């Protein structure tokens, strides 16, 4: 027959042992320290994030301003080129050179070279290419004018147009925009050469 358990002997001790108290205190202290560390990490994260914000936001603003200044300098260099007079002078030069001795030349023909727009088109690679859109209008003997497009550019160009002048933005900006001016001046020369060539063929 089973013996009845002595319930009195299972009752908790009235006094907690010193070792157990020390263990509990150690656990509490360790938890507190970890909690404090957690708070410190959170705080430092907030400081670091704030610091990043403080550093990166002005840095982004500076980079953006530098970028805009660079574009401004390229635009300025481009605007300094007398594009239309250059193209006009070059076309007269090419037409003069192409005129055959004894040929009647253009005679009563009115030639108009209309530059619709030009500039630099950015490429995904970070380079920028010169583009130009223009029309060659020819009116003969008071008849209806004929119009012919002359297009230079990285994405679309006339069959008789060469590839455009492409450079990195830093190259276009360097040397006081020397590369930018060169691209524009060469393109004016090429535009004139194409126009003169088409006129010579049509005569």
């Amino acid at each position, binding site marked *: 027959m089973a013996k009845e358990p002595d319930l009195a002997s299972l009752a908790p001790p009235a006094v907690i042992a010193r070792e157990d108290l020390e263990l509990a205190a150690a656990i509490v202290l360790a938890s507190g320290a970890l909690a404090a560390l957690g708070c410190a990490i959170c705080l430092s994260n907030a400081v670091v994030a704030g610091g990043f914000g403080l550093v990166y936001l002005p840095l982004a603003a500076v980079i953006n301003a530098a970028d805009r200044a660079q574009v401004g300098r390229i635009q300025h260099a481009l605007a300094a080129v007398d594009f239309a007079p250059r193209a006009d002078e*070059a076309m007269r030069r*090419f037409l003069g*050179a192409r005129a055959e001795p004894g040929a009647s030349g253009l005679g009563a023909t009115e030639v108009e070279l209309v530059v619709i727009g030009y500039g630099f088109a950015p490429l995904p*690679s970070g380079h920028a290419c010169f583009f130009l859109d223009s029309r060659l209008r020819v009116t003969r003997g008071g008849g209806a004018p004929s119009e012919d497009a002359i297009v230079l550019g990285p994405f679309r160009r006339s069959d*008789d*147009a*060469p*590839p455009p*002048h*492409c450079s990195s933005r830093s190259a276009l900006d360097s040397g006081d925009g020397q590369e930018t001016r060169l691209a524009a*001046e*060469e393109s004016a*020369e*090429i535009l004139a*050469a*194409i126009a003169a*060539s088409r006129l010579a063929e049509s005569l």
Partner: protein
Amino acid sequence: MSRALALALAVSLCACVHAQVRSDARGVEPSTYVAIPSRLERSVGLLRRLALPPLELEASPTNPSYCLGPCESAAFAAELDSDARRFLSDWRGYEAVDVEATPGLDELARWARSTDDDEPPEPLRMLAQRIAASSRSDGVALLQSELVYLTWFDGVAWYATLTFAIPISMARIGTWLEADVFDARTGRRVWHSRLRAAGTPGTDKSRDLVNELFDGLELALPLVLTRPLP
């Protein structure tokens, strides 16, 4: 092996590709046309009609079965070759004339690779002139590439050295590209560009490598500013 490939990829992503360009095109004149006087200044760009033999390729290892991972050197070389032709005509305005491989071309390629001197020995100078003359070109553009892949021997070395050999393998592999332009009249080298892309060949797009290789090449003289020879 996948770890090794991942490492190779990581190294190649860090790689910086930049071409070293050298040019001495003084006194260059076209052979196939007359330039119409203009304000465009051109030197190498006067050689607007360029004979282009097929790309000279050297691949390592020569036996593809030794490669650690895929190595399709022939396919990548073909891509480089066609991208180079396309870039020269579409973005630089040269008339790229396809010519067949000629005996002695490998010697010219070896000479171009080995020296900074622009005056080839007489037989090679004559070879360049002959290629240009037979294709009625103003010059010859020689394109060559060396593709070095990881091999099983690299893998063995990594295990044997507890991966200490990995940097050596990484320094060894890569894509070397070189382009040289020879003047048809003199047979002299007038333009040179060389680049190295680290990492497994084919990691960088061939088009990007070719663009970088020829980035320093000036635009050809536009066709409208030329006249046929009298």
